């Protein structure tokens, strides 16, 4: 049986599907956050060098990974919207941006909180930190550019271009600690494995999955609002039970 994927590229059908999917991601996310943070804060051992302070890694690293992945996904959706002129892809890109910006902010904020006791500085203009800050500004730029153009289709195209060009920054963030001398240490999670104790790995992996679930749930919930807002003059929206009442 072939599934007709294109059926769900129509905002009217996707609206219902997204609504059904949200709880399937929101609840696992909440539960996994509790489990992951419990393991991270109470089960994982103390670090030999940094003591208890290293435990912020269980928030910092997943948030940083998410901020980079979500940007690439956002840029991919924006590109799909630009190439195929599909409204839903552009809406998905707009829906992803605030969550990505949130993760970039959390990454920078927890990084500052971690940097002060360990390095001795809240902020250093090293390549890793600076490129992550640029990522946050790219998210802000995407949101601001989209909001500044009244016609939503033109706004989609302009901000899509920004998102696509900005994706050059993501590999720079990832490889910055390899290419240049930075205060930020190298990657703990590499393609070849991690340099971490097992319980620490588990905690980080679980919070990372929780972050993914959270991002998906938030994006689907937000894209529903965007669909309603943009399609408010259509027949199908007017016929929705939640709109009629």
């Amino acid at each position, binding site marked *: 049986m072939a599934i007709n994927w294109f059926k769900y590229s129509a905002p009217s059908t996707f609206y219902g599907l997204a609504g059904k999917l949200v709880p399937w991601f929101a609840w696992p996310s909440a539960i996994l956050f509790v489990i992951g943070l419990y393991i991270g804060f109470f089960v994982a051992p103390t670090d030999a*060098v940094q003591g208890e302070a290293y435990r912020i890694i269980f928030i910092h690293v997943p948030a940083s990974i998410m901020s980079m992945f979500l940007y690439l996904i956002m840029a991919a959706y924006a590109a799909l919207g630009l190439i195929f002129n599909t409204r839903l892809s552009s809406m998905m890109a707009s829906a992803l941006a605030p969550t990505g910006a949130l993760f970039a902010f959390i990454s920078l904020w927890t990084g500052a909180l971690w940097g002060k006791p360990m390095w001795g500085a809240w902020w250093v203009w090293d390549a890793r930190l600076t490129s992550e800050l640029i990522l946050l500004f790219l998210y802000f730029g995407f949101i601001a550019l989209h909001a500044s153009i009244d016609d939503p289709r033109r706004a989609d195209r302009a901000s899509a271009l920004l998102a*696509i060009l900005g994706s050059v920054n993501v590999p720079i963030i990832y490889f910055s600690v390899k290419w240049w001398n930075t205060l930020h240490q190298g990657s*703990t999670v590499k393609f070849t494995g991690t340099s971490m104790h097992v319980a620490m790995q588990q905690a980080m992996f679980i919070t990372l999955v929780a972050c993914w679930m959270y991002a998906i749930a938030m994006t689907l919930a937000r894209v529903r609002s965007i669909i309603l807002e943009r399609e408010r003059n259509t027949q199908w929206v007017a016929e929705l039970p939640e709109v009629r009442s």
Partner: protein
Amino acid sequence: MKPRQKKFVYIIIALVALGAAVGLVLYALKNNVSLYFTPTQVYNKEAPQGRNFRIGGLVEPGSVKRQNEDLTVHFNITDNTRSMPVIYKGILPDLFKEGKGVVAQGKIEADNLFHAEEVLAKHDENYMPPEAKDALDKAARAKSEAGGAVPAAPATDKKAY
């Protein structure tokens, strides 16, 4: 070509061109993007002269000397090839330790000492409980003893600090 294929090709070309441009710019600015200079670079006069810059490396084991009357501390920063004597007056970060990574900001004065205004500790990307670290240290010691008179030098690659 269909218009959508054309658009796709344009986007790919634009991304590749931008990527190349950014790559070249960053490559040209390599020294400016890097946070610090290594002692070898400083020795080769690649670091700015008479201006503030950052120097990074390992705190040379056995080189840390504190003065009793105030917070002044002397130590050497080394990359296991060259080392640079540093003088700093202030509170050092908790992770500051002999043999560990450090980044200091300041400049070289006439006395050929690096007068640091700020000292930051740099830690590595390995996380493990103290017992595991002890076991690793012991294994490293045993290995170096078995290997003959070669002292257990800290790893020289950039990742080690």
